[in-house]
């Protein structure tokens, strides 16, 4: 069973390293337009062909990995930690704390955050460096994406609050912080792992959608989200099936993540 996990871990590492070394591994700069070879099919020169402006798709995929695969997991981690903190605290303390926190969570989930994001874009200078803009985008996604999971974490914490081992720990004088972190949090892992796992592709796609507000990556910097948005042009996929490569790659990464983090479940 560990073989699967090992393969998954290796595959993930390869993709991450390839992204980090994009500057070295990519045959061409992501912005370079080979205008005489626009919309070219895969070949020795262009492994995944070129896009409508003659940019090498393989290079753009590699550079896009840097943006999406580094930042999306960080944003996912942020939202998971927030969900654990807010949901966990609410469930642990219960009573009015819980009611207030859950009301705040429900309110948070209902707000049209699109307008906050539009306002953020308005406040940012137009000549903001692409890396800064992308960092801000993923931070915002992490800060806004915790609410749904917090409710589930709260419910889980409540169930654990009155369980025997918690009562015993309390009786033994265990402090609240330690009780939560050492005894309750490990039992909330299923929910937290689920939140983390789902958030990665969701944030990658959300970053592309935020392009409509001027956030996210701007031309010519690529991201997996912007490459995946090409799939909306369905009729082109039949003619250019290599457009599906970013989807398969993301799927592979997401599946590998799941295999790695759920390794314990199968190591009996």
């Amino acid at each position, binding site marked *: *069973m560990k073989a*699967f996990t090992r393969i998954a871990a290796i595959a993930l590492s390869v993709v991450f390293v390839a992204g980090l070394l994009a500057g070295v591994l990519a045959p061409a700069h992501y912005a370079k337009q080979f205008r005489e070879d626009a919309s070219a099919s895969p070949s020795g020169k262009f492994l995944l062909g070129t896009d409508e402006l003659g940019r090498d798709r393989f290079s753009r995929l590699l550079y896009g990995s840097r943006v999406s695969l580094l930042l999306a997991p960080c944003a996912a981690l942020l939202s998971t930690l927030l969900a654990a903190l807010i949901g966990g605290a609410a469930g642990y303390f219960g009573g009015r704390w819980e*009611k207030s926190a*859950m*009301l705040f969570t*429900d*309110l948070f*989930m*209902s*707000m*049209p*955050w*699109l*307008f*906050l994001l*539009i*306002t953020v*874009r*308005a406040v940012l200078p137009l000549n903001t460096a692409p890396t800064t803009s992308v960092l801000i985008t993923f931070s915002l996604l992490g800060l806004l994406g915790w609410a*749904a*999971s917090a*409710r*589930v974490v*709260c*419910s*889980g914490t*409540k*169930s654990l609050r009155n369980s025997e081992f918690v009562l015993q720990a309390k009786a033994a004088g265990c402090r609240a912080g330690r009780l939560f972190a050492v005894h309750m949090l490990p*039992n909330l*892992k*299923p*929910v937290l*792992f*689920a*939140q983390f*796992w*789902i958030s990665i*592709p*969701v944030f990658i*796609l959300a970053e*592309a*959608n935020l392009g409509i507000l001027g956030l996210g990556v701007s031309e010519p910097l690529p991201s997996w989200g912007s490459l*995946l*948005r090409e*799939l*909306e042009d*369905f009729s082109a996929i039949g003619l250019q099936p290599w457009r599906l490569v970013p*989807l398969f790659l*993301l*799927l592979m990464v*997401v*599946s590998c993540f*799941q*295999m790695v983090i*759920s390794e314990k*479940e*199968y190591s009996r």
Partner: protein
Amino acid sequence: MASGSAENSRGRSAARRFLQRLVVFFITLLLAGLLGATLVRFAPGFGLSTEQLDTRLTPESVQALRDAHAGERNLALFYARFLGGLFTGNLGTSSSFKRPITELLRERLPVTLGAIGWGMVLGWLLASSFAASAWLFRSRTYDLFTTVLSGIFLCLPTAALAILFLLMRAPGRFAIALVVFPNVFRYVRNLLATSGELPHIITARAKGLGPSRVLLWHVLPPAAPQLFALLGVSVSMALGAAIPIEAIAGIPGIGQLAWQAALGRDLPLLVNLTLIVTAVTLLANWAGELFAQSLRSHAA
């Protein structure tokens, strides 16, 4: 006599709790409307539209277009007027659709509620079937298969999903199910896996109870409170998914309304939609809490 008065006291206590909930519900709605209105009002582009770029218009006409939003510029006044109208059943007029909002919602709300209903039922059916079967089979290969399957729908942009349905001539609203399914599946799978490792499960299996019986009677109940919480939360997910799906598939629901209202900075419509979304979210989550609560008291 003693049991009768205990029942009366329980009844009064329940009525008091219900009343408290109702008060909290309305205060939350009010707050949500105000916060939503604030976000919209102070976002750039408020009160502006492409119509103002029409080169035929005189300066007076352009000013008139800007003045059309004058009543909305003072947020406090706008909200007070809006609340006043709410009590008389007047939800205002949409500036982007130029129609009474009551009419718009009457036409479109049932469409979206129906789509969300279907999306939830099918999404949960898929998620729980795959999660339950993954627990029952306990096969790494099957787990990988379900992970990849749910991963596909997580990684596909919602717009692409909506177009795929149209290509297959399937009703676009079922695409909501494929947005709900992967989001719910992972949680359910992980919760069942954890719940299934509890000591009493091993005892039950050792005593020869069948896997289905173990799943239904012994694995599900400990996970139920979190599952109910997830159920409530998945309503918000489905509502969120409805917006791009309706906009792309041309389904005349409130999702399509919301998208156009956002692009047009239609304050009255957006405030109403925020209230609807908040109400649905609150009701769904409280229903989830209620079920979880009753399960806990039953178990106790």
